[in-house]
């Protein structure tokens, strides 16, 4: 145990050094900007003829947080916590055998706690302060300098929320992402390996992707074309490429899905895969978990709007409709092709739809959301039934099949459903303060940038992280332990005494 702890400490240190090395310590000046996930901005590079900077000149009022937005963000943050614990934990827990129930609940619960602490220590700073296009800086280590008066920008000029709630909101995103991965190698992984992997992967895959996709200077910086260009150059790499990711399709779902795929390939199949019954021990739990995910997802998607306004209401409707449509898509596909509509299929369909609408929810219209949801339900059904069995990998709870595939579909689909021609909102131009001209092909290229970078980045980091963990403590439990079940052997307790 001692050696385990020291390994952890050592590694945490190493990860700091690693990031520091990767990051030229140039960002000495702290800009009071507030990091923000957002709609990347299309900046019209033509003459700033339309730009009326004078109209922008704010009256000399001290900026303060909007109370309504603040209240909503507090609620939204709580909703995302509900998604992880107990939502995701139960969704996954129901799908394993009874002997491994607690191991899954524990992995999700402890990953959440571990990531929360790492987020405060260095995560927030690395993801959401200005640095290079790939990593932020270290100015806000231990949340240094943040006070109750600190503000974070929203998507509207001159509208702010307290930075603390922004920190907490983003914390929940960083916490659910590594927890999603455990579904891929459930029922056979070492608990200590999960924790060490989480520390490494969080640092080198989650944080840079969050920075690449979401970091920008905030809408206030986009006063005219020149200022917009300057502000744009400080944004994350994928933000600059124009990749749209409203609530984390790339950062959360593709990122976690790929890590899951690499994980289940490296750790190997469960004993008895395709020979013994590995059936879910409680589809009831899974249904309860999926429903909590669904409810919590309103915090995830609608909260990502950062403001309680009309767009938030649109995001709400989009999220609701996509999940419902995907449930129908999955259930009817299963009914037609496999004979019976299953509850597990319904629950999986809802989650697939929620995953797919995540990047698109701020730009799609209701009809586009229904379309995206239907397609996601059918495609994810295909991926976990046909694709998985063809390729033969053992992604126990379909972290890749649902989050990876659904995430990629959603990221690319965003380019389609965001189109104003199809009822989408298009993309806001903060310079002209109007909706920019929309090119579906152009947007599809931007989205592909996001997808490809996320796949490659997460794939490489995951591979190296698993390799390292395997060498240091081993990824997999011994055969007897796997047969006995992880609950008794790893955690010394049993889920059910019936």
């Amino acid at each position, binding site marked *: 145990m001692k050696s385990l702890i020291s390994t952890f400490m050592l590694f945490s240190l190493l990860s700091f050094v690693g990031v520091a090395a990767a990051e030229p310590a140039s960002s000495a000046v702290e800009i009071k900007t507030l990091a923000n996930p957002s709609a990347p901005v299309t900046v019209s590079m033509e003459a700033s003829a339309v730009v009326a900077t004078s109209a922008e000149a704010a009256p000399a009022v001290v900026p303060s947080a909007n109370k309504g937005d603040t209240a909503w963000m507090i609620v939204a943050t709580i909703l995302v916590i509900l998604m992880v614990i107990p939502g995701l934990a139960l969704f996954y827990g129901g799908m394993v055998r009874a002997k491994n129930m607690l191991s899954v609940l524990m992995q999700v619960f402890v990953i959440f706690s571990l990531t929360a602490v790492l987020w405060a220590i260095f995560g927030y700073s690395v993801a959401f302060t200005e640095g290079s296009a790939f990593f932020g800086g270290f100015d806000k280590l231990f949340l240094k300098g943040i006070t109750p008066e600190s503000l974070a920008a929203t998507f509207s000029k001159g509208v702010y929320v307290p930075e603390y709630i922004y920190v907490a909101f983003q914390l929940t995103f960083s916490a659910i992402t590594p927890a999603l991965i455990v579904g891929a190698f459930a029922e056979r992984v070492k608990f200590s390996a999960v924790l060490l992997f989480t520390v490494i992967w969080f640092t080198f895959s989650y944080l840079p992707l969050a920075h690449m996709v979401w970091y920008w200077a905030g809408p206030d910086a986009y006063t005219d074309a020149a200022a917009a260009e300057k502000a744009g150059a400080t944004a994350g790499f994928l933000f600059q490429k124009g990749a749209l990711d409203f609530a984390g399709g790339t950062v959360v779902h593709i990122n976690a899905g790929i890590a899951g795929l690499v994980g289940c390939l490296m750790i190997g199949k469960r004993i008895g895969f395709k020979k013994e019954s*590995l059936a879910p021990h409680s589809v009831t739990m899974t249904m309860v978990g999926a429903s909590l995910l669904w409810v919590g997802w309103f915090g995830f998607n609608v909260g990502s709007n950062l403001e309680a306004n009309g767009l938030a209401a649109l995001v709400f409707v989009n999220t609701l409709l996509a999940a419902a449509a995907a449930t129908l898509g999955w259930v009817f596909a299963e009914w037609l092709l496999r004979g*019976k509509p*299953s509850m597990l299929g319904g629950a999986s369909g809802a989650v697939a739809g929620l995953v797919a609408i995540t990047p698109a929810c701020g730009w799609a219209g209701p009809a586009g959301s229904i379309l995206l949801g239907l397609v996601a339900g059918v495609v994810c059904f295909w991926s*976990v039934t046909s694709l*998985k069995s063809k390729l033969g990998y053992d992604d126990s709870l379909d972290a890749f099949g649902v989050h990876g595939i659904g995430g990629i579909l959603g990221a690319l689909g965003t380019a389609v459903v965001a189109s104003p021609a199809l009822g989408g909102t298009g993309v806001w131009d903060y310079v002209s303060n109007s909706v920019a001209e929309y090119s579906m092909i152009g947007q599809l290229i931007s989205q592909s940038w996001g997808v490809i970078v996320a796949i490659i980045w997460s794939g490489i980091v995951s591979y190296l992280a698993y390799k390292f963990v395997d060498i240091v403590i081993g990824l997999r439990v011994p055969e007897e332990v796997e047969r006995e079940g992880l609950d008794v052997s790893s955690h010394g307790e049993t889920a059910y005494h019936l």
Partner: protein
Amino acid sequence: MKLITAVVKPFKLDDVREALSELGVSGVTVTEVKGFGRQKGHTELYRGAEYVVDFLPKAKIEVAVTDERTDIAVAAISKAASTGKIGDGKIFVTALEQVIRIRTGETGDEAL
């Protein structure tokens, strides 16, 4: 004395208990069991993974009776548990050497 062990469909358990009560049988032991016979199992499908469930749930009833009441008890169970469909179960009758009522120490037919 005989020990009658009947394996029946779970939803027929109440009917069997009632039939035995009518005969004046004062006690039975019931266990939830699984097994297979001529009735085939079924398949379950979870996200495309197909599992064949061979062992089906049944109720096992154990009841001890005097020699002379054995036949009517067996007939009563048989009638109450029957649906006429495959999977109705089986009845086993075995000789019983001794029965003791723990509270009073009574033995044999007295203890039944």
